[in-house]
């Protein structure tokens, strides 16, 4: 087998290759030090990102929020809010009409947002390449606290011949984007050292 591409190595590390393909890559790695070190590095970063994400998930109390919402709804029904029960057919139709209108507006707004997105975010091959190779680091952004200040944002990243991972570090309310380069050094001798 020819040397696996960086993308194949990432897919291998993430367990996304077919069993046959993974077997071929594994066989190659057995006899080749450099790609094996690269896979080790990818696995280290993946482990860090997963651990960070799980740590954040641990601070979210979704169950409590859902239970509070259910209890609030039960209390509203229990205190005799009978409007829903005695709703006339005409008001029901009006509600359906408004639902449709509001739904249409939402769909139009979504379409508008999609059409007016910055083209560089969706057309840049470099940006899409980075997103494809390292989607997991984005997760902590979604799980960040609501009070987090929106920090600087990376618009385009072209790591070139090297490999890069894009993620954010949250310290208090500050969210700082980080580009971590997988530098093998000019002599390409040492293993990656972030963790």
């Amino acid at each position, binding site marked *: 087998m020819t040397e696996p591409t960086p993308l194949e190595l990432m897919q291998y590390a993430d367990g996304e290759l077919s069993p046959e393909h993974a077997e071929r890559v594994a066989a190659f790695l057995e006899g080749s030090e450099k790609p094996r070190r690269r896979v080790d590095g990818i696995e280290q*970063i993946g482990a*860090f990102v997963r*651990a*960070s994400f799980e740590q954040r998930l641990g601070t979210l109390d979704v169950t409590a929020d859902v239970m509070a919402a259910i209890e609030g709804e039960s209390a509203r029904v229990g205190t005799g809010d009978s409007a829903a029960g005695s709703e006339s057919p005409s008001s029901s139709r009006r509600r359906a*009409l408004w639902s*449709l*209108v509001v739904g*249409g*507006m939402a*769909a*139009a*707004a979504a*379409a*508008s*947002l999609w*059409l*007016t997105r910055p083209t*560089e975010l969706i057309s840049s091959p*470099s940006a899409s390449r980075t997103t494809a190779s390292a989607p997991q680091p984005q997760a902590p952004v979604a799980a960040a606290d609501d009070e987090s200040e929106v*920090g*600087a*944002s*990376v*618009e*385009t*990243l*072209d*790591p*070139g*011949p*090297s490999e*890069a991972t894009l993620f954010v*570090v*949250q*310290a*208090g309310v*500050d969210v*700082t*984007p*980080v*580009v*971590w*380069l*997988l*530098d*093998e*050094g*000019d002599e390409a001798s*040492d293993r*990656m*050292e*972030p*963790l």
Partner: protein
Amino acid sequence: MSVRAHRLVSTVAVFVLAVPAMAEPPIRPSSSEEAPKAASFGAEVLVLHATNAGKGIDPRIGRMPELEKPPFSSYDSYVLLEKVRKSLVRGTPKTLELPNKRVLRTELLEVLPNDQVKLSASINKPGGKTFLPLLEVKAKVGQAFIVAGQKYEGGILVLVIRVVK
């Protein structure tokens, strides 16, 4: 199709056509948030050397809680090697030679309203070979981004690039 249904479809169609037009008003900053002059912005670059030499964080670095978070916390020593400020002028890239002889190049791409700028950064190896061809970042004054991972003398280089005014 009944008259009622026909009206309903017409109403939705009007909204579908109208909302995109409303969503994209002409972008013209008001006089109070006119884009500031490009020359007033700068990039402060902190070149840090991260190792596990057991020396802690150099006090000259200042407050940087990010260094205490993973993956930066996997290094216990951060030394400030260099702190420079480069003015950001559109069309005039600024360079900084890094300790590993690679060259960091920053350039102002755009001045945005509300003290925001869009800038690019790249790193070249000696001899002109590109190491990090392109990184474009949008940041507000005071906000930073970090480029880390370059090997250097038993550790790594951590470049903290902050937009200043």
